[in-house]
């Protein structure tokens, strides 16, 4: 099943490169992936839990390196996010004069890479798939971007390449910190085995698998590596410019899906393997995430262009997910995981709609826009929904997740002596909710409300190809927002299994 999920977009992308019609093939492939993902979710045995759909083909048996795929509830939710956003991004792709087929192939390669990363149960492929997805992202920005696309492209390339490199070092350091042998466990790339060994070791000896002192360094390197990929302050400055100049579908896929890889990795690896490292560095993470929320929040307020504002707001919201991860308990981590899902959908919707305004005002500067709600009623209403979702309005999944993050962080699971600092961070995060209302409502007013600033007869009509994906994204946010338990039913057991107890 997971093999097929990775296979479909890859095959479709290759077919397109070999001459198949780009749009049609991509539509078929992304629809098939979405249906298959839904089928996987339905056939996942929630009562049994754990990793399912396990498949493994040894690559280098003596190193215990295998092409190993498996999914637990957390991976499945991320796969669902990938499938929905890919589907929407493919639908919303405009017509290109230049090398349209390459564009679609790149989109599908990103989707394939993200799917692979979330479905891998082997450290090597987990890392490799993400790298695979990054390269087409750079290409999309560099070749089809707008504005200062070349600056943006080199910045994101340098940044993420460096981030990935640090991540690689972190993974190696982590690997080396794991004891070569314990009981029946032999060190390897198998992430499931690592997680099991960590739990078994803790249960048997009361000590973590990796000695406390040995956890400090790998956690720090991983935090920097993953943090760069997630735009953790101060490694964030690639994100706003990249999203502002990226073509719409690329911004949707990267901000919505690919950026979540870092968070996913941090949860997947550091929670079970490096709990002491996480506690040791909690102060640093709290400091940085508060900077993500407050500092970036203020920077967002000062933005005068819609695309840059959204880029910064997306950076800011990473702070909430980090807060949930830092909380280190079931409530906060579930909130973080649900927020990854919710943020991915809402930012994808926001970028999708923003992309439709670009023909009207290439700069997307607030000074040139205004009153568009009158001329573009659908896009105005949809942007309003997505904007309110992203600032945490109840009814949308973002609110439920942020609520869990706040509750989780206010009563953190780790370092009881450190509770007051967690509470301080929570207070800042709550203030961030006010900040986000300020910038989002100001932007909404500047673009969609008030008198019409620009007379034009050629207001684009929202076609089915635009409406349908936006409605899908919003509907998913509403369903998960009204019934968060439906998603949590997948997330909670997986996260409970990851948390050391």
């Amino acid at each position: 099943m997971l093999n097929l999920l990775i296979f479909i977009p890859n095959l479709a992308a290759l077919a397109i490169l070999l001459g198949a019609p780009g749009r049609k093939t991509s539509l078929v492939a992304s629809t098939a992936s979405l249906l298959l993902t839904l089928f996987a979710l339905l056939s996942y045995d929630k009562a049994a839990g754990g990793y399912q759909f396990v498949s493994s083909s040894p690559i280098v048996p003596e190193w215990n390196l295998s092409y190993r795929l498996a999914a637990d509830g957390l991976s499945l939710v991320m796969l669902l996010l990938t499938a929905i956003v890919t589907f929407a991004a493919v639908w919303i792709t405009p017509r290109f004069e230049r090398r349209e087929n390459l564009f679609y192939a790149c989109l599908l390669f990103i989707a394939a890479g993200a799917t692979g990363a979330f479905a891998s149960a082997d450290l090597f492929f987990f890392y490799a798939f993400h790298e695979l997805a990054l390269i087409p992202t750079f290409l999309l920005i560099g070749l089809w971007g707008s504005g200062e696309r070349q600056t943006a492209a080199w910045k994101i390339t340098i940044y993420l390449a460096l981030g990935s490199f640090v991540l690689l070092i972190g993974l190696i350091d982590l690997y080396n910190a794991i004891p070569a042998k314990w009981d029946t466990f032999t060190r390897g790339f198998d992430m499931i085995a690592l997680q099991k060994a960590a739990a078994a070791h803790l249960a048997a000896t009361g000590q973590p698998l990796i000695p406390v002192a040995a956890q400090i360094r790998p956690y720090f390197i991983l935090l920097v590596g993953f943090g760069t990929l997630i735009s953790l302050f101060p490694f964030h400055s690639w994100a706003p410019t990249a999203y502002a100049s990226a073509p719409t579908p690329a911004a949707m896929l990267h901000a919505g899906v690919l950026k979540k890889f870092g968070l996913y990795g941090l949860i997947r690896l550091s929670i079970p393997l490096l709990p002491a490292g996480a506690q040791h560095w909690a102060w640093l993470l709290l400091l940085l995430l508060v900077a993500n929320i407050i500092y970036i929040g203020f920077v967002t307020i000062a933005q005068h262009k819609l695309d840059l504002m959204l880029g910064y707001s997306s950076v800011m919201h990473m702070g909430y997910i980090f807060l949930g991860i830092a909380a280190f308990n079931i409530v906060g981590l579930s909130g973080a995981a649900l927020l990854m899902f919710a943020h991915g959908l809402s930012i994808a919707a926001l970028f999708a709609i923003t992309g439709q305004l670009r023909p009207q005002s290439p700069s997307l500067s607030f000074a040139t826009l205004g009153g568009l709600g009158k001329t573009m009623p659908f896009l105005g209403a949809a942007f309003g929904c997505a904007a309110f979702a992203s600032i945490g309005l109840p009814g949308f999944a973002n609110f439920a997740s942020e609520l869990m993050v706040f509750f989780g962080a206010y009563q953190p699971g780790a370092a009881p002596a450190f509770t007051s600092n967690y509470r301080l961070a929570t207070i800042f995060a709550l203030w961030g909710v006010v900040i986000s209302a300020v910038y989002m409502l100001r932007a909404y007013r500047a673009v969609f409300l008030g008198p019409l600033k620009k007379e034009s007869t050629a207001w684009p009509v929202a076609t089915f190809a635009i409406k349908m994906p936006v409605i899908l994204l919003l509907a998913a946010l509403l369903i998960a927002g009204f019934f968060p338990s439906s998603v949590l039913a997948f997330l909670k057991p997986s996260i409970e299994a990851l948390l050391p107890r």
Partner: protein
Amino acid sequence: MDPHLPWFILLNPLVSAALIHLVLRRSSGTSATVSVLSACFGLLAAVGIWFSGQSGAPIEVPWLDFGPALRIPIGFIIDPLSRLMLLVVTGIGALIHIYSLIYMEHDEAKSRYFGNLSLFMFSMLGIVLANNFAMMFIFWELVGVSSYLLIGHWFTRDSAAAAANKAFITNRIGDFGFMLGILMVWSATGSVVFPEIAAKIGTLNLSADFLTAATLLVFCGAVGKSAQLPLHVWLPDAMEGPTPVSALIHAATMVAAGVYMLARVYFLVALSPDAQTVIAWIGIVTAVFAALMATQQDDIKRILAYSTLSQLGYMISAIGLAAPGAAMFHLFTHAFFKALLFLGAGAIIHALHHEQNIWHMGGLSSRMRVTFLTFTAGFLALIGCPFFSGFFSKDLILLAAWQHNTAIFALALFTAFLTAFYMTRLFVVVFLGKSRTDAAAHGHDGPIAMTGPLMILGLFSVIAGWPWIQNYALGEVSSHTLHLLHEGGGSVPVMILATLSFLAGTGGAYVLYSGKAKDPILIPLFKNKFYIDELYAALIAGTQDLFARILAWFDKWILDGIGVRGLSGGAWGAGFVLRFLQWGNLQAYSFLFGIGVVALIYFMVFAK
């Protein structure tokens, strides 16, 4: 009671809103019908709940459930307090839905209006029914957004868009404190469910400071939603919305949610005398300030808006004076007469083709009989004329102040005088004398769908305070407070003083304003609302926006500029990546990718 009834009450307006927004957007007539029917069904269901007595088992379903770590249900609390509030919200809601049929008849976005009105009903009823803090917060926020949508109904007007933003953001500032207060209470008691907290919080020996902090933070929510100082600035601007919205949301129900919430969590408020003192003072200071501002406004809706602020200040103050029953009683009577006054003002504005300046009106008493008579009833109720509803409820609050704090009592009495003064000014200028404009000379009453609600509300404005109605409607809600107040004594002097201040205010204003063509008094400080809006604007520009610009500059030129470009070697990096991109071939990538893979395997397998 049938456990389905509260579910019906809550979900019926949601279904209506969804139906209108998703399906009926283009058929405005059907939308209006659906919304009005849903409001009427809501009223019927509320009446059903009223007569079916106490609930048996608690009605709740899990929403977020983490076992002992955190449990947030969607659950209902059906007690005398919520049953009363259900009646008020659905009753006035239904009347205003009907009234809107005429008022919004020719609006080009009628569907959107009615859809949002239904959305508001859903949100407001959720607050009323909530049996826990988190659910109340959810609907609290939803009320905020439906208010945002309705204030900004005519969103192409810049002032409406600005007012909508101001309302939402100001409310969010209050909600910041509210949420923090909820977290504090939860961290101490391990629960967000009201009955569980109430049962537990007294047994925990929490420090007085903790309780005061938690109570005041929760109170922040009420300061935002009930527009108390210093977060009152959004309510006058909210008058940019259609007048029925002002009547329903910004007079009768939503702004009263803060008072309702404090009455709901009175078990918490009662534990902290310090917090109560703060609450009482904030309430009464708001009452005085708002009344002063009201004396110099010229826009009929703004005068009523400041009056609402002032009356809400009374209610909040009553909570702080340990008289939640009196607060709820005043909420009850105020809902009728203030909704009536707004709808009456709406009838005038409608008849005068959107004229809102009172100095462009005049002499309306003879041509708009129904509006005039009903408005008079609301007017007399608001200024506390004996035997009208407001007299009884205001009297209780004054009595509570008399017994607890002389300074607050003096201010409350002064507010009563000011209320009579500014309302008489409005009344005299609008209805008596000669018409000052053509439009005013030709105004006439609206059709029955408009005058009907006025007459019903007029009736209640007269009788809602009468003792037997008060006993019947409030019953247990106010019995404890009443008992305490009667034991405290002082009711006769309070009543005399209240009546005197009412007479002084009315008489003074009549003498001053009768027959005048323009305002004989000018007090810039009051007219300009104590310059608080200007002060806030300067504060926001001087702190938040300045700070934002500095940080944005820092981010762009220092962090990104020097840090990043410097590190990556500027031109070299750009050139390298550009070449890289122009290659555009997969060989280069697979080559680099291959290096990464080899490095990974090498380190992992052979390094040790």
